[in-house]
């Protein structure tokens, strides 16, 4: 650099003489710093998302012969309760009858159970309002009632009254045999 300032001629690169070059350096340095901050911030934010072992969620199997008609069994699946309910013919009839009632989250009863097996209902047992566990058989519609904020679900697990916006969620599940099911 020293050789460029030899002589009495004015230095064309003196500060202030070339504002566009100075601006470029400022903007480039600022952009690099901002990029570095964002790049460092993301790992610090993303570390709070589910870790690898949490994501490696196992599916569970369940023997339906343990559930009598009119009963419900609560399993733990992915940290949440899972309802396995064997409905009575009266409950099924009530659910089918309301297929065309005023529903907040419209769904037919048929879409919520496996074909030909209307007695078995498998649902994630957390209220779609704020995640409490609804109680079995309660409420105005005989399905479930959430004690936290008063959501009523019918015998198909559809939301009928109260603050919850959605029906109880039907997880991915399948029959392995007549009595064995797999969830997840």
């Amino acid at each position: 650099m020293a050789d460029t300032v030899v002589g009495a001629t004015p230095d064309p690169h003196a500060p202030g003489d070339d504002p566009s070059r100075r601006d470029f350096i400022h903007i480039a340095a600022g952009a690099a710093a901002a990029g570095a901050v964002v790049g460092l911030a993301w790992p610090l934010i993303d570390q709070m998302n589910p870790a690898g072992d949490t994501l490696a969620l196992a599916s569970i199997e369940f023997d339906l012969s343990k559930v009598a008609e009119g009963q419900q069994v609560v399993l733990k699946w992915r940290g949440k309760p899972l309802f396995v309910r064997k409905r009575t013919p009266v409950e099924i009839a009530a659910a089918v009858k309301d297929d065309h009632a005023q529903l907040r989250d419209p769904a037919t009863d048929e879409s919520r159970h496996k074909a030909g097996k209307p007695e078995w209902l498998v649902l994630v047992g957390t209220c779609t309002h704020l995640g409490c566990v609804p109680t079995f058989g309660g409420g105005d519609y005989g399905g479930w009632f959430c004690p936290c904020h008063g959501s009523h679900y019918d015998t198909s697990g559809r939301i009928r009254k109260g603050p919850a916006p959605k029906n109880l969620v039907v997880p991915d599940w399948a029959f392995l045999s007549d009595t064995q099911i797999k969830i997840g």
Partner: protein
Amino acid sequence: MSGHSSYEPKTGIERWLDSRLPIVRFAFDTALDFPTPKNLNYWWTFGGILALMLAIQLVTGIVLAMHYVPHVDHAFASVERIMRDVNYGWLIRYMHANGASMFFLAVYLHIIRNLYYGSYKAPREVLWILGCLIYLAMMATAFIGYVLPWGQMSFHGAVVITNLFGALPIIGEPITTWLWGGFAVDNPTLNRFFSLHYLLPFVIAGLVILHIWALHVPGNNNPTGVNVKSTSDTVPFHPYYTVKDGFAIAVFLLLYASFVFYNPNVLGHADNYVPANPLVTPSHIVPEWYFLPFYAILRAVPDKLGGVLLMFGAIATLFVLPWLDTSKVRSMRYRPQAKLYFWIFILAALVLGFCGAKLPDDPVIGSPSGLMLLDADINSFVWLSRLATLYFFAYFWVILPVLGLTETPLPVPESISEPVLSHPASTPAGGVASPEKRG
């Protein structure tokens, strides 16, 4: 804090330190010599009480963290071990748990003082906003702290509150998953809550320093709401207010001690002495008393997102209050109409707290009326909550803005000293204009 300091170092060491780090001068100007309005009443003692409560929560909390284990398998048992086996663990935990309630009691009285005497108005808006931020941080800290014992109320409280964020469209679900660190409230959630519960009190302490800084720029408001005009309106903070605050602290500590020693669980819930069970929600889930008004607002709305927005809106409203109240008169002593609406507001807040503790569909008086309005019986807590919620918001967004324009305030005294000096008993020549009514 600024300008003329009357501190004079007396010893060589003080002089030496003063020219390098004037920390003694700072403490002297801030806590001893600070000119304070001479007419402050006991409603002004809660600042000192709150500072003490923060210190108590910090000390007891750091001690508890030495014995607590933030793991779903050990958290509940480690709290029970603190209660039974750790030397004086029962005392420290009861001080911490009831300390939170006392902290909120003091902060509510402090906020009510602000609302009544108009302390949030210019030039104290930043002071007020910093106070709102402290309150917000307190709520976050208290909620997270309540989760740590990992009892039934801890767990399901955490489920409900974190699910509030799920109400947001599109980003709701990723945010709740991110908060949980999984697909349900579980060990990762407990771990991070413990970390944050240790962090947030220090954030509060930092905000408190800013709060006091912002207080010492304009100085204290006072019951008349009139600006300090001369030094005859003020007295030095020490000994006048150190003694007054000290007495108030002593009385407050009596109340605190009566909870810690005689009824340590009355403000808690028996359900939280049952270990957390993700498969069963307690039949009646309620937050701690200091959250009940907001809980009632949440439940008053029959829509998930609407309820969440209204609940957060209640807190957000506080932040913009200095710009909603259009009246130039600070103190409600001189605002007869505003005073009336203010007391109805206090009543509405208490009613909301009462409703928050009840089941929404239960009748308020006797048995249900049988008259349905929209989705619920008119004689139900949900309708009472709706009424009180309506007033809560109307007070800030309609009444205060309109009243400032329509109300004719009573004559405001010339200065803080005037109402005292022109009192008929002390001034024989009482003919001077003094329409100010006392009492």
